[in-house]
Structure formats: structure tokens, C-alpha cells
């Protein structure tokens, strides 16, 4: 299928200011999109409030608006550009590509749909339509959709009374349980109950705090293994997996704050293929017609149960990582697919001979480690949870996980040359330890139990203090495979230390 000839101009919405959770990766994706579509001869209109971006360089778009990314403002831009296209005598139409500027672009596009702006000016959304974005973004609709196509999601139930709450808890059958009161501001009154007593207290309080006296009770996935799939789809419904990612940190830590590894390391082919099939089922059911999506899964470590957590119907933070990890330029290809190309019509940038309709296969391991800056945010709670706190990341490639991890740790620019054994001291709170000091067991246990920026280093301290792999697993739920890899690094450190003259 050739590219669409009925399009004259493409409006691309950028991601705006750099904030935690939405950083320069969306400048990267947006810039790729501008280049890819301009190459095809389309007129590019770009709106981004952040002038400190590559994409706002004049050469990347035909018209660049450095204006607030608000529905009001973008509506004015659409009005002005519609007029401009008339003046130019444009034969084709104006389309909006909302999937390359992060959540900001997606939300703005959805607001424009709701305001009726797109209908009013006859602007078509390409990449993903409004209904698909809605299905992917609304948790409740998404969950029902997943169940309707036979995929598994966390078990949950709604209760209006304490008796009903107990019945739902009974049905789920295991702790911990997550309690979310309906319609409270910022989720006030919610929490995780680890046992029956806590559950009774939280359920009662949740029911009291909820203005409609209703709570949602959901099974907790804390400690489950977390995986991600980067999927691409074209207009002819060809689907490929660009990259599979396994999180070092189990469920409970935001993916943006997790150490992540590509490709997946601890799934058998049978499990991996089920996850691959599920990824395609999700992108098809949600209805993302072309381009990339990111789908997240949780897997129970003891019985392999696999549940869908969420999907992003757009190029995501992980896409930038996956692009660099595999050499498959996700944003560029997503842009080309949005204007009608098929995967087998686009050349693979790496080989230059084979088409983009393939699945990258890696003969190396990629590790991404988040970079935190808690020293600059004295007020912030350094415990990692489901809200993203990292301000950047380092990524490294190696032929083994150990090599890529060590390189990534060194690349963090936190003054360490790797996991440890580099002669640098450790500053923990107000205490300073020498590099090869054995830290107190009690301190180590505490820092292993609740996820934090230094947890990976505390695994080294734990191994050196005589903690067994199984003991560390019980405290962290980090897969034993990763822990043994760290142990191998520590073993080499010990060997080197012992051989010093």
C-alpha cells in the first residue's frame, strides 16, 4: 500500500516541558516523526511549548509553534493553519498525529475531540483514533475489554457494605489486597491490607470516606515479575514485537524507576509466545490501527499466571529504549505507518536490505538503570513506588547481563565504577563506610525490603555480609536469576580482593 496522497499537512504535538516521567525521549520520538514525514513530502506543523528541544529547530518542521500545549491554543493553531492551507491552495487535508508526544499530546488530542475542534475543522487523527485512545487509557473500559477477549487481569470486586467487602475478599482468596474507595480525592483512604485485621479496618474506613459508600477491592500484584512488550502494527494488520523487556525490580516499582533488561531472560518459549499472542490481541482489541504500543504484564513467579496491567496506545518511554536496544527506529516507523505504509514496504535501517517487517533478535543484553536525584529534592520520600521519581536513565549493552549492568552502573555518573569494589566509600544517611566494609545486617535488611534507589548496591552489601540468594529473594522478590548474576560479580570482586599483593 503506498503512502496516503490525500494528506497535505500533518500536525504533530510535542510533549512540552521536561518533567519527571516525561523527558527528552519524546523530543527524540517527535523529531524522528517530523523528519520521517517531511521526507515523504508532507507539510509539517509542530506545536511544542519547549524551545529547548531538537524538534523545534526550524529545519524540522515547515511551521513551528512555540506555544502552550493546551486545547485552546492548539485549536487556534488548527484554525490558522486551515486558513493557511486554503491560501496555499492545498489539495489534501490536515491530519493530527497525537501518538508521538507522550501523554501530553495524547491528552491534548483527546480534549480537542471532546471540544469538537477536530470535527469542526475536519481534522482526522492518524495513528490511533479517539475510540482506541479511550479504550487504552480508561482503566475500567480496558479491564472489561481484556476480559472480553479472554485475557487475564487482576481479580477485583466492588463492595457497598462491610459484608460485601468480606465476600469479595473471600472470593479473591489471598492477601495482600488493595482497597480503593470510590470518588475520593487523590485516592484518599486507600491502601494495601496484608491480613484480615488490616482489611477490616481499611474496608470500614474506605466505605466511610467514599461519598457513595463504595470501595474497589483488588488482588495485589506486589512481588510479581513484570514484563513489557513493544508492539508495532500496520494498516494490513501485520503485527511484530520489536522488543521484549524484563524488569529486574518486581511489581510495585514504577517501570520508569525499575532496572529493566532486554530481551526477556526468564520465560520459556511457551510462556513468551503466550505473551506475544496476548500483546497482539491487546493492540487489535484496543484498535490502535498503526504504530507502536507498549503493553505491560505481571507474571506470578510460582505458577506463571500472566495478567495484563496496562497498555500505552502511543510511543512510550520504553520505545526510545527499545529503539536504541534493537536498532529499530520505532517513532520513525510509527510515523510512516500512520500515513499508510506497510511494514514490508519500509527498509530496515540497520541492514538496509531487509524490510522492517521482522522481529529484531538480539545477541546481546541491554540494561537500563534509572538515575535519581533525591539529593536535590530534600522533601521527597526516596522509597520507590508506583509513582515515577527518577530523573533520567543510563543504558548499556553487553554480551552478558553482568557486563551490561556494570557498564550501565558506571554510566550513571554517580561516582561508582560498577556494583562496588572500586575503592570508593559508601555514604548511607549520616554514616560513611569504606568500600569493602561489611555493613550491619539490620541496615541491609531494611534497605532490601523497601525499594529504593540504592537497592542494587545493597544486594552486593548483603551478599558480602553473608546473606544467601534465597534470603535476598525473600526480602526483595527480585528473581533469583538476577540475584545469582549479581553474586557472580561479587564473587569476582572477592577473588580479586583476595589476590591483591
Amino acid at each position, binding site marked *: 500500500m503506498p503512502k496516503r496522497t490525500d494528506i497535505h499537512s500533518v500536525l504533530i504535538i510535542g510533549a512540552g516541558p521536561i518533567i519527571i516521567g516525561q523527558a527528552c525521549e519524546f523530543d527524540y520520538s517527535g523529531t524522528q516523526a517530523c523528519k520521517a514525514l517531511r521526507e515523504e513530502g508532507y507539510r509539517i506543523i509542530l506545536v511544542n511549548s519547549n524551545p529547548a528541544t531538537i524538534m523545534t529547530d526550524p529545519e524540522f518542521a515547515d511551521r513551528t509553534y512555540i506555544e502552550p500545549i493546551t486545547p485552546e491554543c492548539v485549536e487556534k493553531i488548527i484554525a490558522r493553519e486551515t486558513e493557511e492551507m486554503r491560501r496555499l491552495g492545498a489539495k489534501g487535508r490536515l491530519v493530527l498525529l497525537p501518538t508521538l508526544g507522550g501523554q501530553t499530546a495524547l491528552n491534548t488530542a483527546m480534549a480537542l475531540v471532546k471540544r469538537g475542534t477536530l470535527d469542526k475543522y475536519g481534522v482526522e487523527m492518524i495513528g490511533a483514533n479517539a475510540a482506541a485512545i479511550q479504550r487504552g487509557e480508561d482503566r475500567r473500559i480496558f479491564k472489561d475489554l481484556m476480559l472480553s477477549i479472554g485475557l487475564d487481569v487482576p481479580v477485583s470486586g466492588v463492595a457497598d457494605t462491610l459484608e460485601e467487602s468480606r465476600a469479595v475478599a473471600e472470593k479473591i482468596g489471598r492477601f495482600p489486597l488493595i482497597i480503593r474507595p470510590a470518588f475520593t480525592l487523590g485516592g484518599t483512604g486507600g491502601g494495601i491490607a496484608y491480613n484480615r485485621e488490616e482489611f477490616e479496618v481499611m474496608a470500614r474506613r474506605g466505605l466511610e470516606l467514599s461519598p457513595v459508600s463504595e470501595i474497589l477491592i483488588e488482588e495485589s500484584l506486589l512481588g510479581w515479575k513484570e514484563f513489557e512488550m513493544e508492539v508495532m502494527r500496520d494498516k494490513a494488520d501485520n503485527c511484530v514485537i520489536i522488543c521484549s523487556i524484563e524488569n529486574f525490580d518486581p511489581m510495585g516499582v514504577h517501570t520508569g524507576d525499575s532496572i529493566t533488561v532486554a530481551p526477556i531472560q526468564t520465560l520459556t518459549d511457551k510462556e513468551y509466545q503466550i505473551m506475544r499472542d496476548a500483546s497482539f490481541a491487546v493492540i487489535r482489541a484496543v484498535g490502535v490501527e498503526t504504530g507502536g504500543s507498549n503493553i505491560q504484564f505481571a507474571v506470578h513467579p510460582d505458577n506463571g499466571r500472566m495478567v495484563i496491567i496496562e497498555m500505552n496506545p502511543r510511543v512510550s518511554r520504553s520505545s526510545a529504549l527499545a529503539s536504541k536496544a534493537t536498532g529499530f527506529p520505532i517513532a520513525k516507523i510509527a510515523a510512516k505507518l500512520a500515513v499508510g505504509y506497510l511494514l514490508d514496504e519500509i527498509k530496515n535501517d540497520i541492514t538496509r536490505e531487509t524490510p522492517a517487517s521482522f522481529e529484531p533478535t538480539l*545477541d546481546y543484553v541491554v540494561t537500563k538503570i534509572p538515575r535519581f536525584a533525591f539529593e536535590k529534592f530534600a522533601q521527597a520520600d526516596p522509597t520507590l513506588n508506583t509513582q515515577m521519581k527518577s530523573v533520567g536513565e543510563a543504558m548499556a549493552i553487553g554480551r552478558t547481563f553482568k557486563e551490561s549492568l556494570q557498564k550501565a552502573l558506571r554510566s550513571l555518573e554517580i561516582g561508582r565504577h560498577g556494583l562496588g569494589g572500586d575503592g570508593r566509600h559508601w555514604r548511607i544517611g549520616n554514616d560513611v563506610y569504606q568500600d569493602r566494609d561489611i555493613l550491619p545486617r539490620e541496615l541491609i535488611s531494611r534497605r532490601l525490603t523497601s525499594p529504593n534507589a540504592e537497592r542494587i548496591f545493597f544486594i552486593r552489601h548483603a551478599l558480602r555480609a553473608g546473606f544467601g540468594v534465597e534470603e535476598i529473594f525473600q526480602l526483595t522478590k527480585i528473581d533469583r536469576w538476577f540475584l545469582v548474576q549479581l553474586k557472580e560479580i561479587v564473587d569476582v570482586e572477592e577473588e580479586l580482593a583476595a589476590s591483591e599483593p
Partner: protein
Amino acid sequence: MNALLALEDGSVFHGRAFGASAEGCGEVCFNTSMTGYQEILTDPSYKGQIVTMTCPLIGNYGVNSADVESWQPHVAGFAIRELSPVVSNWRAQSSLSDYLAHHGIPGIDGIDTRALTKKLRVRGALNGFISTRAISAEEAVARAKSWPGLVGVDYVKTVTHPKPFLWDEADTQSQGFQLPRGLAAAAIPAPLPPADIPIVAFDYGMKYNILRRLRQHGFKVQVVPATATAAEALSYKPAGIFLSNGPGDPAVLGYAVRAVRDLIDNGVPIFGICLGHQILGQAFGGKTFKLKFGHRGANQPVKDLESGRVEITSQNHGFAVDPATLPSDVVVDRINLNDQTVEGLRHKTRNIFCVQYHPEASPGPHDSTPLFAQFREMIRNS
């Protein structure tokens, strides 16, 4: 323990031994799949080959009794970058090293598999010798050089089941792998559809997942040895014939080509996979040739020229059908997008089709599973 892998070009890779204390010769080939080493090891098509994985970390999830494609591993040796010191998966029953040791297969780890793969890509498949015993590098290279190679050798006879048998009469081995779900403690498998279409499958070294898939699609599968004649196969009164995958050089299987030619003349519907596709190609009057380094992996793009759809497929073949040698009543309907070689054939007037890749996957993507339903449909409409 030390191990080494020597190639006929004189290069030697030194590494650590795992698996059995053993040695063996084989054609060294690489597989690009990132998952599924156990399925690869137990695929009879790898008879006579020493396999290296481009994926560097192997053994992470161990081995289990379900993920097998035959009764035992068939590779002559296994060469990898790094063997996992730990097994971490809820399905694991044993470690890869113990498994290979149990089956007498030598493994080597800690070698530069990227350098090895590059060599194979440039030079083409090379004969090799692997040993986990004490042996000098010179002697190892001599062993690799003196091995006659697999061109012109019939490996099918060593892996075909010698006697005919009916696949899974009790319906206990054909369920697809399932995960536990939601509130259920264990997944209750949906019943298999009735086995209402009898077919005969020629076993040239057939992967179990082909049999499982056939059964899942309602076929009652009578398996016959590779050497069976057309008359023997037709004596079961099959509604269709299936031709399996298998190892080695397709050009030496005169007996199989003769049987298939007779079956084509008979008019019975036929579906072939991999070696079965190459045998069909020859029975049509075409020729096969050896690819430089073969297609082995789970990410090979195949284009269906009639629908325009692209399937990501699992492949394992070192030979291919030469399209120029095919008669005009046979259509090439699928090609590999990486090198444009033939991946599928269809007869214009008869109920015959075949694919060079593995729609049964295992390991690999499930994109091509619908081909089994297509076979059923073809028989229904014949």
C-alpha cells in the same frame, strides 16, 4: 573442565564443558531464536548438527518434560556464550547441563559465539568437532576436516519412528500449553475437538508439536515411517496426507520422493512442512540446493504473495527449493523477505500445498497456526 569446538577451516574455540563428557562431529549452524533452546535441542531436524545460539545467555529457565519436540535431544553438540549457573522458572524440572549429560550430549560455553556466527555467515556452514574430553587442538581440527559432512547422507532413517503408530489415542499429549488463570487454581483445558478426519503423516523426523497441532485441529493422525510406500499409506484410507520436517540433505531421499509422486498421482490432499516441502518440490519435478548458512530462528519474515500478509515464522532449514526448476502448474505463493527464497508452494489444480517454515512453531511465533485449519478446510472441500 575444558571443552573445545574445532572447525574444518582450522579455527578452534576453547571454552568450558557442560553436559556430557563426550565428543562428536556435525555441521555447525547458528540459531537466532531468543527462547526455546529445549525445543531446538529435541527437534530431530538437527540430527548431524552442532548448534550454536546467537542469544548469549542460555539455560536461564532450565528444562522441563513438556517442552520437548521428540523423545530426546538430537544435536551432536551445543555451543553457547554463557550457561546460567542457576535455573529460575516455575516450570523447570532440571538444569540444561544435567539434561544434556543424561542424554550423552557435549556442550561448550564461554566461547565467542558472535565470532563463530560471523564466520558461518561469511564462510557458510562449516563442519566441526566438539569435545568435552582431553584432546589436542590439532587432533580436533583433523577430526572436523575428516568428517564427511551431511550432504549426500540420509539422516531421516536414523530419526523416523520405525513402526507405524496412531498419535495420542488417549488425548493426553495434544493439549496446548496453558497458564493458570484468575480465580481457578489450575486451568481446566477445553476438550479437544473430535478427531474426525483421518490422515496419514509421513515421519521424516517429525516434531511433536506438529502432531499436537494436527490433533488440536481435529485430525486423527496415523504416523508411518519415512520409508512407507504410497500403497502402504493409502491402505489406511486417509482423507489427507501430511509430510513432516526432518534432518539432512533432501536430495538423497529417492524413496520418499517416489512415494510422494505416487500420492500426487492418486489425488489425495497433501500438506507438507520443511523437509516435507522439499520432498514435494522434488516430487513435482523440481530441485533443491544448499543455502549458504540456512535459516534457523524464530524471526524470519515470510510474505504471502497472494494476501500480502507478512508472518513472522519459525524456521530451520539448510536447503531450499529452486523455483526455476518447478513446473508451471506449481506456484510459489510465499517467499522469505530477507533473501527472497521459496517459503511456500501451491499446486494450481490439485489439493496440495506446503511451506518451508514451521507453522507449528515451538519454538517461535504462532502467526502461521492457521495453516493447519487451512489443511482441514482443503480436505473438507476436496
